[in-house]
């Protein structure tokens, strides 16, 4: 296993390590979320770059600069996993922050490009993922309440978070984190 580590040490009020493929509004939303979660702490993110060999072993691809280990005041606080998912005519960027035990701490929509379906940015929708993990049920309309008029994007978010949760669980099981 090869892990290439990039580290940025941050004091809040200072931008977190940039995610190169993410636009500035998405980056701002990451910064804001971290500032809220780890108030007055020094946070650093460590990019986990999973090698091609490891990805073959895991059975799925992991795009560069999508998986980060999170530290606050030198304590391991969990993981940040970024991804894209389809809305009706476009794609949106979202983030899942996991606790060290791989339960979900926070889900945030970082960049939503389309007009319709933007309701998924609502915290009342996203809060429903908190505490869930790979073993949890994720059925839209049953375990997670959707939002009328944003069905496609709600379903996309649910499927995306479910996918990332399965993947991070498997990475942990095989010692890739």
């Amino acid at each position, binding site marked *: 296993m090869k892990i290439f580590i990039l580290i940025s040490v941050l004091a809040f009020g200072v931008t977190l390590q940039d995610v190169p493929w993410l*636009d500035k*509004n998405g980056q701002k939303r990451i910064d804001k979320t971290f500032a809220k979660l780890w108030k007055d702490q020094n946070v650093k993110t460590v990019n986990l770059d999973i090698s091609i060999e490891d990805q073959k072993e895991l059975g799925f691809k992991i795009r560069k600069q999508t998986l980060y280990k999170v530290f606050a005041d030198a304590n391991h606080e969990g993981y940040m996993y970024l991804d894209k998912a*389809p809305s*009706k*005519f*476009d*794609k949106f960027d979202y983030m899942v922050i996991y606790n060290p035990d791989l339960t979900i701490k926070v889900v945030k*929509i970082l960049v939503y*490009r*389309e*007009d319709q379906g*933007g*309701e998924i*940015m*609502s*915290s*009342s*929708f996203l*809060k*429903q993922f908190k505490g869930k993990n790979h073993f949890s049920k994720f*059925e839209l*309309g*049953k375990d997670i*309440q*959707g*939002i*009328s*008029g*944003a*069905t496609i994007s709600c*379903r996309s978010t649910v499927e995306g978070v479910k996918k990332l949760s399965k993947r991070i669980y498997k990475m942990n099981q095989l010692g890739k984190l």
Partner: protein
Amino acid sequence: MMLFSVIVTQAQVTSADSTTNEPMNTAQNILAGNGGKSITVAGYGEVHYNQQFNDTLSHNGKMDVHRVIMFLGYKFSDKTSFITELEFEHVKELYVEQAFLQHNLHENINFRTGLMLIPMGIVNEYHEPTTFNGVERPNVDSKIIPTTWREIGAGFSGKFPSASLRYQLYAVNGFLSYNGVGKIGGSSGYRSGRQKGAEAIFTTPNLSGKLDFYGLKGLKLGLSGYFGGTQSTAYNNLDKSDADAVAAADSSVINISMVGIDARYQNKGFKARGQFIYSNNDNSEAYNAYTGKDLGSSFVGYYIEASYDIMTLIDKESKMELNIFGRYENYDTHNSVLSMDRDLSYGRLDYTTGIGLKLANGAMLKADYQQFINIDPTTDAKHQINLGFGVWF
């Protein structure tokens, strides 16, 4: 009784061959499916069987490929997109229901121009058949809101995520009320006045807006407004100094003020929705005198609906849904009238109850029974059974 099927596909494709750099036409782009994101193809369709019945008279049933729709979207850049909705209705009628250009000005502001849906109530904007219960759309969304209501215009839309608000505000073309004959009235409401962006007459802009709040889990609330004068050919080549001619032309237009509130709620297997629409028709007295029509001075309509997915009781692990639902509608295009008798046959109470079996996300079989009651006590209620399916992809 029969059900029919249509074939549906979905693709997200590029606008250029990234491997050979050869120019490709639209069809080739769509067929290539080589990993790009510029063109999006989506659609929906619904096929219906309607059978009216009563004790004394026989009625022919109607089988109809009611709608087959294709969405085509092209993304020029991260900020600029063009969206179209192309519709075949009853197999042989072709319409462009949406064709607008949208540009993202700011995280919270989009500029939109072209042929677009008027944001009023629920179904006019969200009319994909798997998003509503019943084979047919609610009648309030036909008789009061002339779904699918679309006109050419321009304006802004966006959202404020921290406040859980979405807004839309557009200046649009209005209904055509007169083109030699009166176009709107008591029987069909505004439906015949829709211009649909087809060589539309334009004399005065109308204002359309909607505010949606979605900050409480499972609940969505909407407030819609539409204000403005109708369009009329009577103003074409009009001598502005001819006071009588101007006054006559003024009698051919109606000043519409329509407001609507709507709510949708869902909690696990339970769903409920409702909407209330009120529309005031200022100048209806002069309009009716000028055109010989019977337009009411106000329209009103509302419905409430509840449904429950009983599959959650039968098989909690099932991916399918079996929704039972009931809907009550009350609407009247002669809610109030001026200088004429109210026609009670325009006031209706409709009851609909039925089931919807969601086979997979985006594919639903539907069956329901409807009772249509006129508030006119001298007329008998009508009864109808509907079967059909809807797909959305």
